[in-house]
């Protein structure tokens, strides 16, 4: 069984007095120990919502309406709050886009690290300090002893994100959920941080759920890929396979729209239109108004994720080599 197993997850937000709109419309996700999974989608596709839902962090007025989230065999949605806290930030760690969502600006980095450790286990200050400095060293922070006493504002954005990673590693988590961890950083710093995350996950066999809009980043870091559109998974399979032979027209459209995919100066392959909001989804497949392969049935019926070899595609007319003209 997978270490993390999400089934039929629905997250709803109120729409007017009686209605609800679904931000997640039945999402399944599996993560094996040490596996690196990418979740890709445009803004509003529900990818961050998925991360928050997994940690049972959906805040009012949103709510998890249906589904189950099993971690190590236990359903996080029915666990008492104390036990969830023991998993969240401990066995499942989270890295956000903005390091200051994790870091407290008025406490030294060292104090925050020690407190994190002490929140999850009985450990003395001296030992916690030693372990914290060791972790700062592991994320290649120069002079970790002196950085232990620094405040977050004394560090650059890249170093702050390294500190956040060091904090995430303190409790030896089994899974790291990283939500756009390098989107706010410069390209060269992004390369450093992603190389670091990749190495740490490999060396310590930590599972990774990497949420991003950047197909290049998931191609570099992950083994498996999930493409989300309007609250649903539209395609899921090995990263290589999806990038080389996309099966869902949306996956193909996203890849084809990248400037590196056409000859210099040629017109880019744009996807017409925009993704619908959760409150105004079209009938049938949510992608059909933008889809070049849509047929009459796509306007009426909602496709489900179906297995096609080793991958799953949610489409009535998937792009399968040799399947259709």
């Amino acid at each position, binding site marked *: 069984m997978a270490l993390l197993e999400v089934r039929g997850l629905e997250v709803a937000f109120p729409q007017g007095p009686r209605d609800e709109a679904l931000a997640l419309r039945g999402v399944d996700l599996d993560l094996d120990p040490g596996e690196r999974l990418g979740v890709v989608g*445009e*803004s509003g596709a529900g990818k961050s919502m998925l991360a928050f839902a997994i940690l049972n962090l959906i805040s009012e007025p949103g709510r998890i309406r249906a589904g189950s989230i099993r971690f190590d065999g236990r359903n996080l949605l029915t666990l008492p709050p104390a036990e969830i806290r023991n998993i969240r930030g401990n066995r499942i760690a989270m890295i956000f886009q903005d390091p200051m969502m994790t870091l407290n600006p008025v406490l030294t980095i060292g104090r925050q690290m020690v407190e994190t450790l002490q929140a999850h286990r009985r450990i003395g200050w001296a030992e916690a300090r030693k372990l914290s400095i060791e972790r700062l060293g592991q994320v*290649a*922070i*120069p002079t970790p002893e002196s950085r232990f006493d620094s405040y977050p504002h004394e560090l*650059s954005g*890249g*170093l702050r994100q*390294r500190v956040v990673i060091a904090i995430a590693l303190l409790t030896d988590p089994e899974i790291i959920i990283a939500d756009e961890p390098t989107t706010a950083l*410069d*390209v*060269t*710093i*992004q*390369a*450093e941080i*992603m*190389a*670091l995350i*990749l*190495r740490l996950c490999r060396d310590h066999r930590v599972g990774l759920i990497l949420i991003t*809009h*950047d*197909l*290049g*980043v998931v*191609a*570099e*870091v992950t083994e498996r890929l999930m493409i989300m559109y309007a609250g649903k998974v539209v395609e899921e399979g090995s990263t290589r396979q999806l*990038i080389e032979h996309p099966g869902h027209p949306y996956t193909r*459209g*996203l*890849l084809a*729209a*990248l*400037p*590196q995919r*056409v000859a*210099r*100066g040629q*017109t*880019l*392959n*744009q*996807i*017409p239109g*925009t*993704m619908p909001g959760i409150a105004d989804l079209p009938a049938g497949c949510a992608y059909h108004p933008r889809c070049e392969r849509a047929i009459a049935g796509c306007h009426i019926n909602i496709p489900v994720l179906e297995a096609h070899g080793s991958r799953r595609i949610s489409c009535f007319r998937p792009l399968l080599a040799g399947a259709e003209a």
Partner: protein
Amino acid sequence: MTGLAEERGLVEVRGLEKRFAMPSHFLSREKPVLHALNGVDAVIRRGEAFCVVGESGCGKTTLGRIVMGLTEPSNGEVHFDGSRIDDLGETRRRPFRARMQMVFQNPYASLNPRRSVFDTLAEPLRHLRPRMRRAEVREAVEAVMLAVGADPKWGRRMPHEFSGGQRQRIAIARALVTDPEFIVADEPISALDVSIQAQILNLMTKAREERGLTYLFITHDLNVVRHFGDRVAVMYLGRIVELADVVELFDRPRHPYTRLLLEAIPKLEGGSFERERQPGELPNPIKPPPGCAFAPRCPLADERCRAERPALKPAGPARVACFAVEEGRD
């Protein structure tokens, strides 16, 4: 390639410097100064897409704003079509304003939320072409909306009713409505989703072909530069460190920083994040190092690099500011 002196461009900047005074500590007499631009020369040729690429703090946005007259340079000159424009007052600058326009990164901030789309698009005409009659303004606005793929019925609606991509179309329409020759685009697609980025880039390419536009295109995204640009200037800490034709730059990056940038691009084929690096940081722009600003991160840096500042010099068909390249140590 000819020297800067002989080249005639639509837009020329010479020796641009910009210093920003920073708030000083209340106990200190020192007045810290941030050096945003440290002597930038560039010639933008008529009809080309001149890209400026670099990371945050390199001065690329300041450069665009100075060219547009939105920020005053501390030193140096800006010339447009043969006339010096950086020292003109508002009235004498006005004829140039219609000929040069700007598109900003964030279409949520750059459109006035209280102004209808029609008024947003008509405003530059009312301001810069006061003699235009109402019917002519209406006609021009509708024509530009059609040109950018916006429904003329959008005119009466307000910006908040539109998605990011639609707003950026409106912002581009506003830039095009005075029929300019030159557009400064500062990260025009960075805030947009991938599928929308392609729409906007295609629109900018089409506008360029149809109107013979010249672009100063400011971006951090090298994939976009490769697709869209003709020439590219790579900036680091307020200076151009490499200037080359786009194809040349990608085929043969010369400056160590350019190489680092190219290696850092995530690739669909993978392999960019396999090599781990020590944290690299931009030096403090308030106390820049005495030598080459990139020396603290540079694998090729030696004593000279840390003491002296390299100038932008021809290197093959490109121009590079690097002693290692000059001395053949690269």
